[in-house]
């Protein structure tokens, strides 16, 4: 036996001795008829089946099974050996009357059976002396009777397998009397139940482990992506705070310079040159101030904040007229206004002025220097989902280089400057149009662009005639 690979206990990565089962072996009860005995065993199998359906683990479930079986089938030793992956687990149960020698023999015998039935390593060369082992006459079960003279000990060895051989383990029951064919049938049925239960148990465990692993991996992934989202948010917050702080801090000295220039303008007895220089300072400081406002608002739009609006009733035509007058002082007579006499509505004056300024400045900046920029204002109604909405449309049209369809797609994104704009060599921050869109959307309106050879480039801003409704709808 020393040649058997399984004699080396190291090959059993997990060996467990389990608690002794309180069990009294009994001789076959000859007083029972075979029908009564069959019924008795059927009941046992039924109970074992019930137990196995809630198979917890070998240590917990097996002693209960053996107890049940012993009521109908007498045995002295029970050995369970099973192979799981690279490890082999052996468990042994025995009754008190069993001698150490009997245990040793049962163990050896079960290991041999295991090697044989599972095709475990070196099984061909293993010293499987007993001829009985190889004669598998009774379906899966092995009956072996020791020499009756000496120490009558018979084993019944059952391969544990599901679907097909080789088995993944063996269950061996040992008794001290010869086993009949009916005993083998009973234990065969028992082994099938056990095999299915163990197989199912490990499958479930495997699935659980897999799921746990997947869950762990996905939670790792999630935490990683959460971390990067947090990083991005932190970065964004920092940038926004930076812009906000910078703007406020810039404004203080800027205002001081501007107010000082305004005070010079008010001085009595200064020369015309001084007054003119002071007014230049004021004008340029105002421009810087406007840029800071734009930057702050761009920051607001970027962070998803709504632009603060001060909605009030006014005549749009008058406002556009005033704005164009100011723009004319900068750019000259470059604008043509096509509009009705009056167009009253509810909007934010400062914001509308910025829309006009931005679109007009762009038209001058990138449009043909010889052609005028045409502003068209009109009132119209549009039916949106059964609701007739009064709208006002502001169109700013210029000729010159066209904007390609690709550039049109990203034109209203922040810090995006179209290729045309970049190629023009003109400087810009790429926030003007994103502001126009932000302002239009804050009013519940839209902005779009069309650029073709026929009309040139046309920016169209559409606003509801009364933006109060939108504000009140969206309010808390």
């Amino acid at each position, binding site marked *: 036996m020393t040649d058997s690979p399984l004699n080396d206990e190291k090959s059993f990565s997990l060996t467990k001795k389990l608690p002794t089962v309180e069990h009294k072996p009994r001789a076959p009860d000859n007083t029972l008829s075979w029908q009564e005995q069959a019924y008795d065993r059927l009941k046992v199998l039924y109970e074992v089946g019930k137990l196995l359906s809630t198979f917890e683990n070998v240590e917990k479930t097996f002693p209960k099974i053996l107890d049940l079986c012993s009521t109908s089938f007498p045995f002295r030793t029970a050995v369970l050996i099973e192979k799981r992956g690279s490890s082999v687990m052996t468990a042994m149960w025995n009754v008190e009357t069993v001698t150490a020698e009997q245990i040793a023999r049962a163990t050896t015998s079960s290991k041999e059976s295991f090697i044989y039935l599972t095709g475990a390593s070196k099984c061909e060369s293993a010293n499987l002396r007993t001829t009985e082992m190889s004669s598998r006459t009774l379906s899966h079960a092995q009956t072996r009777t020791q020499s009756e003279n000496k120490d009558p000990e018979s084993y019944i060895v059952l391969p544990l397998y599901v679907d097909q051989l080789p088995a993944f383990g063996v269950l061996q029951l040992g008794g001290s009397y010869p086993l009949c064919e009916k005993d083998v049938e009973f234990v065969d049925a028992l082994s099938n139940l056990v095999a299915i239960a163990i197989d199912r148990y490990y499958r479930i465990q495997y699935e659980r482990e897999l799921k746990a692993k997947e869950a762990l991996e996905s939670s790792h992934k999630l935490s990683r992506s959460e971390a990067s989202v947090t990083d991005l948010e932190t970065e964004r917050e920092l940038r926004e705070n930076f812009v906000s702080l910078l703007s*406020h801090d810039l*404004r*203080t*000295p800027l*205002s*001081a310079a*501007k*107010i*000082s220039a*305004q*005070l010079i303008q*008010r001085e009595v007895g200064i020369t015309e040159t001084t007054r003119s220089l002071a007014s230049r300072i004021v004008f340029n400081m105002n421009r810087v*101030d406007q840029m800071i406002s734009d930057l702050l608002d761009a920051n607001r739009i970027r962070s998803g904040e709504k632009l*603060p609006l001060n909605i009030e009733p006014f005549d749009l035509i008058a406002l556009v007229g005033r704005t164009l007058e100011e723009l004319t002082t900068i750019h000259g007579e470059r604008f043509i206004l096509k509009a009705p006499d009056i167009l009253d509505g509810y909007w934010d004056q400062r914001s509308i002025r910025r829309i006009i300024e931005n679109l007009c400045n762009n038209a001058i900046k990138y449009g043909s220097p010889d052609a005028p920029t045409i502003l068209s204002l009109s009132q119209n109604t549009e039916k949106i989902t059964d609701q007739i909405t009064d709208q006002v449309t502001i169109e700013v049209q210029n000729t010159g280089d066209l904007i390609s369809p690709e550039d049109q797609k990203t034109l209203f994104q922040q810090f995006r400057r179209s290729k045309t704009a970049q190629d023009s060599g003109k400087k810009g921050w790429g926030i003007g149009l994103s502001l126009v869109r932000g302002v239009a959307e804050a009013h519940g309106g839209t902005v779009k662009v069309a650029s073709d050879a026929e009309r040139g480039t046309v920016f169209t801003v559409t606003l509801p005639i009364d933006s109060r409704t939108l504000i009140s709808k969206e309010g808390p």
Partner: protein
Amino acid sequence: MKKTILAIDDNKETLFLEGVVLTQAGYQVHTALGGEAALKMIHELKEIDLILLDYEMAGMNGPEFLAALEKQYPLVFEQTPVIYATAHENPPQKLNKSWIPKLRDIDKFIKDVERFITP
């Protein structure tokens, strides 16, 4: 009799210009560089018609100054109207006081102050 304004700001430039602008607009103006300076000054001033208080100041900020004022000069605190000057476009609602935007344009600033006090 000119109306008296106590302007409190931690920025020298702003404070100086507020002083000039409000003086030119016809007010009697006292300026204090920060809350602590203002508290030291208050008992010397006979009558204040309006306190123009910078909201965000290094050291003692606007609300902290008011808390200290209430503690040290409860009578002044009770009887003197206070307005905040703030750089915020949308100041927090919890200010609990009227506010005007900081000095960015002379005419607008004078108009804002006149809503609370005329010279």
